[in-house]
C-alpha cells in the first residue's frame, strides 16, 4: 500500500517521548492561517509554476507530472514560495514496506515513530499498515500528531493500533476556530473528549495567536477541560512564530513573551506539571 510523504525526519526530539522518526504525510483537511508548513496542505496539481523558479534544474515535468531530483536540489525552497496551491513538488509516494524497512533498519536508535503532517490521519490506511508491520517486528511505539479532525471510523482504527496521540486544539470558540482554520471545532472537541478517556492522549498543543485565541479565559477553559477529563494529558503552550507562514499572518510578530508567561502561569495553576512551556 502506498502513502504520500512530504518528508521523513530520522531523528526528532520534539515529536513525542524519546528519540523518534517523524514521518510527515502530505495533505490536510484544515487550512490554518498560521500554518508553519503550508506546503504539506494540498496535493500538487502539476501546474508547473515551481519549474520556472528552480535555478538548479531540480524540477522537470514528465507526462504532465512534476518530477523532483533530490540530488540537484539545494534546498532554497523557492519552489515552495511560489506554489499557490499550498503544495510542494518534493513530496513523494512510498510503499509501506519500504517505509517499514527504513524504520526497522534504525530500530536500535529509536523509541518510536510519529506520524505528522499535514493531517496524517487522512492516510489512516497507510498508517495502520505501517504500524502493524512495525509492531510485528519491534517494540517501537507509534504516535499520531493530529489536528483532531478525524472521522469516527479512522479514529477507532487508530486507537486500536497506536500508542499515543498529540492533538492540536486551535481554538475553543467555534467562530475563532472557523476563522483560523476554515472549519468548525465540533469534531475536534468531540474527539478530544473521546481520546482523553483512553490512555492515549499524550499531549494537547495550543498555539497562542495574539488577538485571536489568546484570551486568558479561553486558554483556561481548555486547561480546566483537560484537567477534568483525565489526570495525565499534558498541555503544551506554543507561542506563535511567523517562520514558514504563507498567509498574511506572516506579518504578525513573534508572540509576546511577557504575555505568554502570564498565560502560562494561569494554566500552570490549573494543570501544574502537566502544563508545558515552549520557547
Amino acid at each position, binding site marked *: 500500500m502506498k502513502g504520500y510523504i512530504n518528508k521523513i*525526519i530520522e531523528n526528532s*526530539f*520534539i515529536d513525542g517521548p*524519546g*528519540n523518534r522518526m*517523524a514521518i510527515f504525510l502530505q495533505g490536510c483537511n484544515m487550512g490554518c492561517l498560521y500554518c508553519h508548513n503550508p506546503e504539506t496542505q494540498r496535493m500538487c496539481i502539476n501546474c508547473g509554476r515551481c519549474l520556472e523558479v528552480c535555478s538548479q534544474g531540480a524540477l522537470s515535468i514528465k507526462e504532465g507530472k512534476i518530477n523532483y531530483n533530490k540530488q540537484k536540489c539545494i534546498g532554497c525552497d523557492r519552489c515552495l514560495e511560489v506554489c499557490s496551491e499550498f503544495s510542494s513538488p518534493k513530496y513523494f509516494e512510498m510503499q509501506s514496506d519500504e517505509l517499514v524497512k527504513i524504520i526497522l533498519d534504525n530500530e536500535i*536508535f529509536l*523509541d518510536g515513530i510519529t506520524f505528522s503532517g499535514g493531517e496524517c490521519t487522512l492516510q489512516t490506511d497507510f498508517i495502520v499498515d505501517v504500524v502493524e508491520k512495525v509492531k510485528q517486528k519491534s517494540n517501537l511505539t507509534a504516535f499520531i500528531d493530529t489536528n483532531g479532525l478525524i472521522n469516527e471510523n479512522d479514529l477507532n482504527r487508530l486507537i486500536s493500533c497506536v500508542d499515543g496521540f498529540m492533538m492540536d486544539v486551535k481554538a475553543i470558540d467555534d467562530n475563532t476556530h472557523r476563522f483560523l482554520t476554515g472549519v468548525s471545532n465540533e469534531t475536534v472537541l468531540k474527539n478530544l473528549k473521546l481520546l482523553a478517556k483512553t490512555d492515549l492522549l499524550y499531549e494537547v498543543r495550543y498555539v497562542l495567536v495574539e488577538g485571536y485565541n489568546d484570551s486568558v479565559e479561553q486558554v483556561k477553559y481548555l486547561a480546566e477541560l483537560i484537567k477534568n477529563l483525565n489526570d495525565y494529558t499534558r498541555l503544551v503552550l506554543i507561542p506563535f512564530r511567523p517562520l514558514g507562514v504563507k498567509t498574511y499572518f506572516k506579518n504578525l510578530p513573534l508572540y509576546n513573551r511577557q504575555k505568554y508567561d502570564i498565560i502560562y502561569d494561569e494554566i500552570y495553576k490549573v494543570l501544574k506539571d502537566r502544563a508545558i512551556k515552549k520557547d
Partner: protein
Amino acid sequence: MNVFEIISNTNIDYKEKRHLLALAAENTLSYVNLSVKTEKHLKKGILCDIFEGHAPYRPRYILPDYEKYIKNGSEYLGIKPPKDMYEVVNALMVIYQYVPSITGYPVYVGQLDYILENFLDTVSEGEARNLIKMLLINIEKTLPDAFVHMNIGPKETRAGRIILEIERELKKAVPNISLKYSKEETPLDFAKFAAEVALEIGKPYFVNHEEIKNLLGENYGIASCYNTLKIGGGSYTLVRLNLKKASQEAKDYRDFIDNVLPNVVDSLCEVINARAKFIVEEAKFFETSFLAKEGLIDINNFTSMAGIFGLYECIETLKGLKLGHDEEALKYGEEILDKIKEVIDSNEGYGCFGTDGKIGFHAQSGIDSDIDVTAGVRIKIGNEPSIYNQIKTEGRLHKYFNTGVSDIYVFDKTARQNVDGVMKIIDAAMKSGIKVFALNTSDSELIRITGYLVKRSDIEKYNRGEVLREDTVKLGAESIKNNKTLDRRVREVE
C-alpha cells in the same frame, strides 16, 4: 620558528615560549636513528610525529596511578597519605606539577570522583563542594591545556555529581572529562544528568566502558584527547600515518594494499620503536622518574601508539567512493584497517608490555595544520550521512582500535529538552561499537575541535591577536580555519 622568533613572538606567553625553547634545544640533536626509507616517509609527510621532537626524553602520555599515590603518599614529594578532604585536594594539586608529558601539562589528572568520594565525609557538605570547586579552578588555572583529562564513572558517586554540577557552572574548556559509561553499572539517572551537562558544555564524553574494559581491563584511563591507556602506564609516543598521502603513492587499490601499506606501516612501527627505545635506553626515563621509583607508573603498563587518519580521503582517492554513503566504501575501509592492523601486529612493539607486546592502534584526530584531510576514521565534515548511518558505519570501524577512537555528534538545541531521546542514541551507539561518543550542541559556547574543547569567545580573542592563557586555543582557532570544524552536520529537527 627559530630561537629569536620564539623569544620575540608577541602572540605567545612566557610559559609557551619556554616550552618551545626546550623543543628547539632538543631539536639541535639529530633525529633518533632511522632507515633511509623511513626518513623519506617522514619528509614526505606520509608519516608525522606531531612535533614530538628529535630526542624524546619523556613519554608522550603518562597516566600515574593516583589512587596508589593517595594511599601511600610520596617520599619524593614529601607528601603523607592524605587523611581528609583538605589534604587530598592539596596532594593532587601538588603532584600535577610533577607529571611530565609532551605538552608539559599532565594529560591525565585521574579518576577524581572515586578518589574524592573516600574523603567526602571528612568535612561538611558545603566544605566538600567548595574544596572540589577549588580543585577544579586550580586545574583550569595552573594547567591551561584542554588535553588535561579527568575521568569519572562508571558508578555514580556523590563526588562525581558534584564535579559535573560545578563544571556546568564554571563552563571552562579545561579539563577535558570522560564518563566511563556502562548500561549495567551507570545508573540511568546519573547518565542522563551527564548527558544534560554534555549538551550544555560539550563534556563529559561517553566512553564505552564495556568495550574498553574488554580490551584493557578494568584499570584504564582516558587521557589527552581520547586515548585509552592503562592506569600506571601510558604511551611513549604517537606517530601517525596520513592515509590520504599514502594513497597517492599507490598505482591502484591493490597496489596500496599489497605494497604501499606494508611498506609505510613498517616504517611507522620503526619510528615508534626508535623513539620508545630512546626514551627508555638513552634518556633513561624510568631510571630517573620518581613516578617509576615509587610505583606510580610501571613500564609493564606502557605502550606506544600508531595513529592513522584520512581514511575518508584514502577511500575516495583509490576507489572514488564516499565513506558513510556507500556500503562498498565501508568494506574497503575494513580491508584497509585489517591490513594495517596485521602489519602492526607483525612487528614487535618496543616496551609495549601494556598491550601484549604490540603497538597500540589509534585513530588520530588530526592537528590544526591538517588541511583537507579527515580525522581518524571519521566521515568528512559536512558530508556526514544521517546520524544513524554515521554511527553504524563508524561503529564497524571503531572495533579495530584499542588505544583511542572517537567521533563527535552535534545536536541542535531541542536535544536539551529530551535527554531520554539523546540517551537512546548514545545507547544505540554503544551497542553499535562506538568507543568514545562526544556530544555537542550547535549553539554551545564550548566547541569540541577534534579531541578537546575551546571557548568560542577565546577563538575570537585569538583571531584578534590577544595573548591567551590556554595553549589549546591557538590549535583550536587554526583547526576551525583549516578543517571547517563548525560545518559539522547539525542534527536538526524542525
